[in-house]
């Protein structure tokens, strides 16, 4: 195995500038949506006092979770010493930082008072998992940035193992914290489960790697650099394991709930009677987002096809968004149980399934998070040496036989 040679992409092509312009357009649309929502207030959105977190949170939480997962490849190379993954480790850290930035942008721009971000950064209630998350997010930026530096500057290389190990521990804490945002909500039937934390960790592995796969496949195709089967097959097999892992946690979560009579109502709502949420769960999350990608990844006819795996990765991302939608919006749509065994009605929609119609502005703000992340990656690979010139088998595979 040769030492990988990292090189900036040329980027002086029409396609590259068009990609930047397209992503930039989405970012501008997101900023426009933010000003539209903040100018008069959140009444222009589909969010209400019944569904308090909406589409922006679906995107934001997805991106934050995926950010931690994008670090998979770097972690495997530094922490578990798998040299085959080493050439892609810098890109892995870059994507992790970019996705977190995109997710946080969406989260912050949806706040009722985003102008008070400084308050959130300076006043902490340490009993709040949300406050802990702010520390975890900022820490992730710092630690991953240092990790990236140790990999990219030769004199710092000797510290990359310890930095990689710290980043690995930190990203596990970060996703545990994100899952706990829901796990710690004692009052709502759909949340309040310790399984949320580990489930979010495995979700991060899957979503983050799916995005990473797409970025690698696209950037090597567009720059006409060689991407060998060794790297490709390793990544896609790993992706399959992670998708199956998420499926396992989802099954465990619902089976546990189905056993307890007090959760029958919310389970029936998500799995059978919930309309859009039931459809999103079965068709979006389970069939499109899990079963079809697994079939594509493991079927011999499709498993080695770059385009088929790209489709599988896109489906995993869409399935992940569907899963977030079911967790975040579906969990709020189901009414709070205030008086078990009684029918409840009031002027404040007690006892009713809450309706939510997302607006274009919310969707554009959410998509803007993706655009910010991809724009950062596209720009960074042009100005800094993130991508190896070649990922051909002889360049990366320690066991390659010519």
């Amino acid at each position, binding site marked *: 195995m040769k030492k990988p040679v990292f090189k900036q992409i040329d980027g002086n092509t029409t396609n590259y500038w068009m990609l930047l312009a397209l992503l930039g357009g989405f970012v501008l649309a997101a900023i426009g949506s933010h000003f539209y929502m903040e100018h*008069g207030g959140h009444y222009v959105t589909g969010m209400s*006092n019944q569904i308090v977190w909406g589409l922006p949170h679906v995107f934001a939480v997805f991106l934050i979770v995926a950010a931690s997962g994008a670090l998979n490849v770097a972690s495997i190379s530094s922490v578990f010493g798998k040299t085959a993954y080493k050439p892609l480790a810098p890109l892995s850290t870059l994507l992790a930082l970019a996705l977190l930035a995109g997710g946080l942008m969406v989260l912050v721009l949806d706040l009722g008072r985003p102008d008070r971000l400084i308050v959130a950064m300076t006043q902490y209630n340490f009993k709040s998992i*949300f406050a802990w998350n702010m520390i975890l997010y900022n820490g992730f930026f710092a630690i991953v940035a240092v990790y990236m530096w140790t990999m990219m500057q030769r004199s710092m290389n000797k510290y990359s193992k310890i930095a990689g190990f710290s980043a690995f521990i930190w990203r596990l804490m970060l996703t545990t914290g994100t899952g706990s945002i829901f796990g710690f909500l004692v009052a709502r039937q759909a949340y309040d489960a310790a399984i949320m934390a580990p489930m979010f960790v495995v979700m991060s592995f899957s979503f983050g790697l799916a995005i990473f796969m797409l970025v690698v496949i696209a950037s090597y195709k567009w720059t006409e650099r060689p991407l060998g089967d060794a790297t490709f097959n390793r990544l896609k097999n790993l992706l399959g394991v992670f998708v199956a892992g998420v499926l396992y946690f989802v099954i465990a979560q619902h089976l546990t709930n189905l056993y307890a009579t007090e959760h029958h109502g919310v389970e029936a709502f998500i799995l059978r009677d919930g309309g859009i949420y039931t459809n999103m769960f079965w068709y979006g999350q389970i069939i499109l987002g899990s079963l079809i990608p697994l079939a594509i990844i493991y079927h011999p006819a499709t498993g080695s096809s770059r385009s088929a795996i790209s489709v599988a990765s896109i489906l995993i991302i869409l399935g992940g968004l569907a899963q977030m939608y079911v967790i975040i919006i579906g969990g709020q749509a189901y009414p709070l149980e205030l008086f078990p065994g009684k029918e409840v009605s009031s002027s404040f929609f007690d006892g009713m399934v809450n309706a939510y119609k997302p607006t274009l502005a919310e969707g554009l703000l959410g998509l803007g998070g993706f655009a910010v992340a991809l724009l950062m990656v596209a720009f960074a690979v042009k100005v800094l040496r993130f991508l190896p010139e070649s990922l051909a088998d002889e360049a990366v595979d320690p066991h390659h036989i010519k």
Partner: protein
Amino acid sequence: MSPTKSDHKTDQYRRKFLAQSAAVAGLSIAPGIVLNQVAHAKADSDKASDTNRWGMLIDTNKCSKGCTDCVTACQDENGWGTGETHSSKEQQAQWIRKVTITDKQTGHVQSLPLMCQHCETAPCVDVCPTGASMQRKDGIVQVDKHICIGCRYCMMACPYKARSFIHEKLELQKATAPRGIGTVESCNMCAHRVDKDQNPACVEACSKAEHGAMIFGDLKDANSAISIELKKHGGEQIRADLGLNTGVRYQGL
């Protein structure tokens, strides 16, 4: 090499620049410090003392089904219910609401007012990242509108759906109940009235309507009307299973 004349001149410029920068920085920070002290002047909430724990007892048997006097009184006192013209019904704030509950087995119908239950271990206070959702020493739970960032995590955490987010700009607010776009609000047991030894507006309205379904008082004072009544006939918490030790209790549930 000895310093040249031009080096001296450069040093002088630097010193002058540093001094001017310091002066500008000082002038910029000073008003902030003064304002900060004004903002931290003794607030009304300092009257709250942990020798009290304010609570409410609601007798659902006395609560009249069609009556919404408590809701109207709260609206008049705290200025909500009008002015949110752009917001949908689902988006408009409600600090207190009348809830009708029907027993699925027996068909027995009850009516009761529901608002912030002023939990001792309030989930909204626990989850708030900035500490805006806070509890006074006397047990009243309320929102510090100055540091609420509008994340709505407290609304996700509240088991009683007692909180509202303000979805639009508001005008003509009550001096005693400031409200603001992008922040969260809820019943604060009329803290401004409690601090003047008055009953909350809803309790007063319920007495005025001669229903007498609501008693307000100090749960820590064994001789208060609420403590005597609770000792005699008991009082239930809504979602007692959560173990939140609510300040608002109900009879006849």
